[in-house]
């Protein structure tokens, strides 16, 4: 990664941290830091993406503001992370959208909802949007099957590809000077466990500083709810597609069917998790927060919340005349999500996953 004001600042901070080491028991960042004496921008990017922003080190820091050293690792790491998202975005010019991320995500959401509504009205008889549709294939009478699948697979496929390119560029950019070691099973398993349990947001069992200098697991649980909720929704869609193609069972499915159950629980968890994380963000001690990045974070959480909420509403009103509009809004939001995915907070999952993998590898070196 290129040298910026933020990398120079975070290098200054890491050199103080590396001489102090009081935080060595907090998370994976500090033991990883102690493996180094000098910090390249690649090292700093790696450490920043390994940081889960639990804020434990900030509240414990004898050098935190107003101390003249002004050590604020969570804030500066968040800044470096955002810079790394921009630096490794694919295609490269798209990196710039990380500067006004809240605006981008919000605009994308409005535009794609509008687009889907307009397309629906243009392609179908507008009356279909307002009349109750029931029975097999009800959704596809509102939005044609080919359009739904076409838009979804194009946008999601693009997102996966762009994020994959970003991942490759990130992995190369943060490689230690000595070069790469082959990836083996044990570090992959450890990184996967880290991702699935968010161990680094547990503060070694007693919790993180979610709101202030008291310890809690609040953020970890909300993040889990969001993560697993998201995964359940994804599973619901996959199951639905499987039913459609291989079993010939067309949606809408019965309430107790697998896709509807996965989607309902997933949607509920997604709403709970994102609402919880939004709440934590608004009430937490602002000291260790990078305020400049909040817009994009709020926007992405709100988008995910709305996807979950409209999905649940769709389930509730799917036998009424409001189903058509709700379906268009829901799918418009999902489309927006797929489109902005490689250019939003969502990429942190990719880079943090890779940072955890690199950390697991380093520990074995």
């Amino acid at each position: 990664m290129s040298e910026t004001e933020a990398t120079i600042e975070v290098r200054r901070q890491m050199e103080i941290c590396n001489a102090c080491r009081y935080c060595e028991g907090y998370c994976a960042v500090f033991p990883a830091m102690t493996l180094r004496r000098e910090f390249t921008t690649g090292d700093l990017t790696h450490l920043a993406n390994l940081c889960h922003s639990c804020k434990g080190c900030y509240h414990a820091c004898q050098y935190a503001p107003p101390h003249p050293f002004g050590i604020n690792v969570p804030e500066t790491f968040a800044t470096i992370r955002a810079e790394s998202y921009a630096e490794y975005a694919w295609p490269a010019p798209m990196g710039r959208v990380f500067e006004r991320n809240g605006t981008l995500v919000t605009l994308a959401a409005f535009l794609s909802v509008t687009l889907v509504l307009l397309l629906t009205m243009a392609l179908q008889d507008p009356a279909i949007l307002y009349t109750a549709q029931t029975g097999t294939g009800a959704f596809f009478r509102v939005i044609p099957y080919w359009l739904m699948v076409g838009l979804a697979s194009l946008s999601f496929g693009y997102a996966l590809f762009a994020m994959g390119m970003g991942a490759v560029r990130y992995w190369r950019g943060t490689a230690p000077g000595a070069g790469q070691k082959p990836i083996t099973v044990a570090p992959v398993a450890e990184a996967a466990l880290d991702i699935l349990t968010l161990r680094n947001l547990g503060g070694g069992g007693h919790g993180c500083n979610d709101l202030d200098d008291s310890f809690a697991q609040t953020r970890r649980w909300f993040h889990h709810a969001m993560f697993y909720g998201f995964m359940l929704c994804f599973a619901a869609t996959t199951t639905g597609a499987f039913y459609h193609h291989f079993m010939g069972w067309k949606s809408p499915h019965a309430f107790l069917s697998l896709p509807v159950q996965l989607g309902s629980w997933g949607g509920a968890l997604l709403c709970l998790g994102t609402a919880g994380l939004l709440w934590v963000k608004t009430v937490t001690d602002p000291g260790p927060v990078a305020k400049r990045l909040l817009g994009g974070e709020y926007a992405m959480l709100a988008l995910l919340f709305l996807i979950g909420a409209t999905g649940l509403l769709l389930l509730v009103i799917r036998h009424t005349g409001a189903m058509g509009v709700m379906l268009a809004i829901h799918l418009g939001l999902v489309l927006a999500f797929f489109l902005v995915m490689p250019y939003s907070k969502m990429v942190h999952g990719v880079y943090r996953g890779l940072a955890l993998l690199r950390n697991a590898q380093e520990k074995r070196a």
Partner: protein
Amino acid sequence: MVDFARLWDVLVVGGGNAALSAAITAAQAGASVIIAEHAPKAMRGGNSRHTRNLRALHPKPTDVLTESYLEEEYWDDLLRVTGGRTDEGLARMCIRASEHAPGFLRDCGVVFQPSLSGTLSLSRTNAFFLGGGKALVNALYRTAEKLGITILYDTEVQHIAIEDGFAREAIVSWRGFPERIRCKAIIASAGGFQANREWLREYWGDAADNFQIRGTPYAQGRVLKDMLANGVQEVGDATQFHAVANDARAPMEDGGLAMRLDCVPFSIVVNKDVERFYDEGEDVWPKRYAIWGRLIAQQRDQRAFAITDSQALHNYLPSVFPPMKADSIGELAGLLGLDAAKLEGVVAEYNAAVQPGTFHGNKLDDCRTEGLAIPKSHWARRIDQPPFYGHPLAPGITFTFLGVKVNERARVMMADGKPSGNIFASGEIMAGNILGQGYLAGFGMTIGTVFGRIAGEEASKLVRN
């Protein structure tokens, strides 16, 4: 809003570990407690904010302490660093009580961690606070708040009105406004006077201007001076302090622990006149590092320089400020502002005196010199592998030893030899009772917690009668 008309059971002066241990103990026993902390909230906690661990006796391994550490060994360690200048009764009482200090702190929400990096080699004797002293201070304040203790920040106690060994009230500056706090008992936990350069100058002259104050700038010694002027018995040597070898580029105040340089045992140390002045390899770092601040304080301009080479670089912790680096000793001397020919001579003489041995970074090894006027007894290896490194050193003071005399019930003794009616003390302000000179890593926090608890207990007992 604070009710300054109220009569409090206990006023605790200070806001570090010793003060909070006292306040929490008194409040748990049912007393109404008010804390007057000189610092603003963000800088609260006195020197405790910069600490990291406490030394605790333990007969068997615990989850945070390895093996065992018993009274006799603890006492021997203390005896060695103090050179016998200690009150054996108080010291042994403190050592015995230290067994229960980690448990008390844990009950107050303090989290301990196993020692990870091992560079300090203290995991057997010292329990480490997860996140360090500020995390401990945060936990103690949270506990104090939960117990309903009133905490005044930005509040300096300026005078304690003492009559016949009995304190009735304290005059304080509360956010700059003069106020009175009336109370039935006072616990003084206001630290030493190390941040009061004028006072230090009384004993050290101009040298005091070059002392770096490692800890809180709020340790002005105002309460100590006031009490000594009002009939409280003095203890300890006014010229003694705990000081370490700090980076000469550290801030003059509040630089904290990370400014210390632990390269001394793996280097040779010269003063501005390019002369070695003490055996750098006398003992393992935790036991002997406390003497180096004082040694440097006695050198010209209170400066010294640790010289190492690339072989030694990874034997010690990295420093906040990068060391001077050069490809030859002569060039390094230039960077450090030293006489090049003289430094080359000192290094050559040292290298010639180094005997063959097996190097062990974490214990006393057999690498030593022979034939030097000032030997290096351990970890002596030739300094001949460029690049060479130079760390400029200055004395970094942790706390002063002059204090108020207390008895084993933490009750302050008056100059007439009688215990005060209702004044107690805990922490640095009375550490001089036990530490006549020298320092044992983590012992300050032990004294603070042990005497804090006793003071809190005794004060609450007194006010309930």
